[in-house]
């Protein structure tokens, strides 16, 4: 029996084959899936903000792109993954609202996506697929067995990346 493990907002979970990881309702947030395909282990994080550096409160590491990616690597190592084998797939980072006179905070999706790609690069994790941007929400499911990331939307189709 395979379980579907839910990842909440500012949360991170690990899964082994045959389980799946799911996170629902990604708007400007980003779902980061990191997997070791030979060991069939994966971790998913649901981050909200690009960086913990300016934050006054950074207790929850899974909330920020930089600390969440550090955490993903640590967790994968603990679970027995080979850090040289890690690959990543990401989705989310949309801009949900548009105001005239846009403030930075509303472009948070774009900044999140940039930050995630930058920190994945720093940790030498290869980004193999992404589905970011747009102005719509996403629910994503990662299958540890196949490394397929299923992206569901409302009114913008369904795809596997």
């Amino acid at each position, binding site marked *: 029996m395979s379980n579907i493990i839910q990842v*909440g*907002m*500012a*949360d991170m979970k690990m899964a082994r084959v045959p389980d799946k990881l799911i996170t*629902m*309702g*990604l*708007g*400007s*947030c980003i779902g980061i899936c990191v997997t070791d395909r030979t060991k069939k282990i994966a971790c998913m994080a649901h981050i*909200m*903000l690009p960086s913990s550096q*300016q*934050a*006054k*409160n950074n*207790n*929850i590491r899974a*909330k920020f792109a930089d600390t969440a990616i550090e955490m993903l690597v640590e967790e994968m190592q603990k679970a027995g993954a080979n850090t040289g084998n890690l690959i990543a797939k990401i989705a989310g980072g*949309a*801009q*949900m*609202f*548009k*105001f*005239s006179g846009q403030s930075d*905070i*509303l472009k*948070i*999706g774009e900044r999140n996506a940039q930050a995630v790609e930058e920190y994945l690069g720093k940790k030498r994790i290869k980004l193999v697929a992404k589905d970011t941007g747009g102005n*719509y*929400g*996403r*629910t994503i499911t990662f299958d540890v067995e196949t490394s397929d990331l299923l992206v569901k939307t*409302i*009114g913008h189709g369904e795809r596997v990346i």
Partner: protein
Amino acid sequence: MDELNKLSTVQLDALREISNIGAGNAATALAKLINSRIDMNVPRVNILQFTEVPDLIGGPDIPVVGLYLKVSGDAPCSILFILQVEMAAALADLVMGRDIGTTNHEEFSEIDISALMEIGNILAGTYLGALAMFTGLSFTPSVPALGMDMAGAIIDVILAQFGEVADYVLVLETELKREKQGVVGNFFLLPDPGSLEIILSALGVDVFE
């Protein structure tokens, strides 16, 4: 940091009372607009972890219409009015004087969208009017932004603004109900970090116990 958990009963009661009056005014305005009776529940004052907020409206992946207004002034905050898509379509019909069911909730026209935005304007304006009278503070709402999508996706960009300073958020929530139709929508007021103290102090209950 997360001093929200230290709010006293008196402070929570004061917050509940202002949201009661604010939402009461908003409900009356909506009732007049669609010429139908609107009921509301006793407002809830919730101190929630971010993850829990989407559950207030039935889960992160249910489709909703969200009207979001950024409020500037003495105590900046965010206002969010969340409606189930079917109910948003019904509201658009009511405001436009059409039979309910005319609007397809999968395809809102520009007129429907501007009708819904106007509802957002009116609700926020009346709510803030009451809040301003009570506190003597000034509140200026932005033009509403409308989003139609998964509840989680609508909410996360708003929560992201709080994310840098807090792990918890204070949510003043009121459910508006229409006769026989159940819940119309949920009205949320989320004070920005720092604004809560200003509001509490204006209400004369500013001492953290």
